[in-house]
């Protein structure tokens, strides 16, 4: 099944090197749950205005995963990076002011710990913020629990522990596969990472994958 509004998940997170293991965990687990991750890093078209690309992707995704854990002081500029909260706001705006389909949007918000957001974005008080503590395994479990409630058909996804084991297998073998393809494992583009994840899942399928199928958004 191709990516649709219903099964697409907007990944709104930092893209720096330190965040890389968490980013890989999110992309892999979204695919492994039978959904399609979308993010601002897909495609590579300098002629496209970034904000238009982001709003377009947000409009095409019913679900989203926002990670505001990097909203912190930068030691060089003494200012926080604010792209993630900004794009989270666009997603909420689409849900509040959009049409019938847009109003069905749902998202999950991550931070390092549950209460930190109150000091810089208290307007989202009352929302269920999940903490990942910078651990990819915790993130995989939360992503699984969130997406299991949004699977288009009545399906029970494998438990968090099973998906974490699969994520470990994927990561363990990723370096060797990248070497085989002469890819730089640490600087994989979103598209390449997506293809690697889909390829691995295709060769190690779970029953629910037959229902939703995986495609790569490039």
């Amino acid at each position: 099944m191709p990516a649709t509004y219903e099964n697409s998940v907007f990944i709104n997170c930092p893209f720096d090197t330190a965040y890389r293991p968490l980013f890989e965990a999110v992309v892999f687990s979204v695919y492994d749950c039978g959904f399609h991750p979308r993010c601002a890093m897909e495609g590579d078209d300098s002629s496209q205005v970034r904000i238009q690309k982001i709003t377009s992707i947000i409009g095409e995704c019913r679900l989203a995963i926002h990670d505001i854990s990097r909203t912190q002081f930068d030691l060089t500029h003494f200012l926080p990076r604010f792209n993630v909260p900004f794009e989270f706001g666009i997603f909420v705006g689409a849900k509040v002011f959009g049409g019938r389909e847009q109003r069905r949007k749902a998202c999950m918000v991550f931070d390092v710990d549950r209460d930190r957001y109150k000091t810089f974005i208290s307007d989202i008080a009352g929302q269920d913020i999940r903490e990942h503590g910078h651990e990819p395994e915790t993130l995989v479990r939360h992503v699984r629990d969130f997406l299991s409630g949004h699977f288009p058909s009545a399906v029970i996804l494998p438990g968090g522990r099973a998906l974490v084991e699969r994520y470990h297998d994927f990561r363990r073998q990723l370096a060797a596969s990248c070497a085989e393809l002469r890819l730089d494992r640490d600087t994989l583009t979103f598209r390449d990472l997506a293809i690697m994840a889909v390829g691995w899942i295709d060769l190690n399928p779970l029953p629910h994958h037959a229902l939703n199928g995986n495609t790569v958004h490039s």
Partner: protein
Amino acid sequence: MEQRVVRTVMRPPRSKNLTLTQAKRAWRKVMRDERKAEERKRLDQAARAGAPPVS
């Protein structure tokens, strides 16, 4: 003078992009190598323990 029109058929350049087929081929090789390594390790352990290898 009559001019000949020469048509050249341009082959599309090979895509530099990674394809799903390439990725799956690489995964298959890595998984096969890993299975072989595990099998070798198991045989080595069995040999060290003095037990006859079971295959």
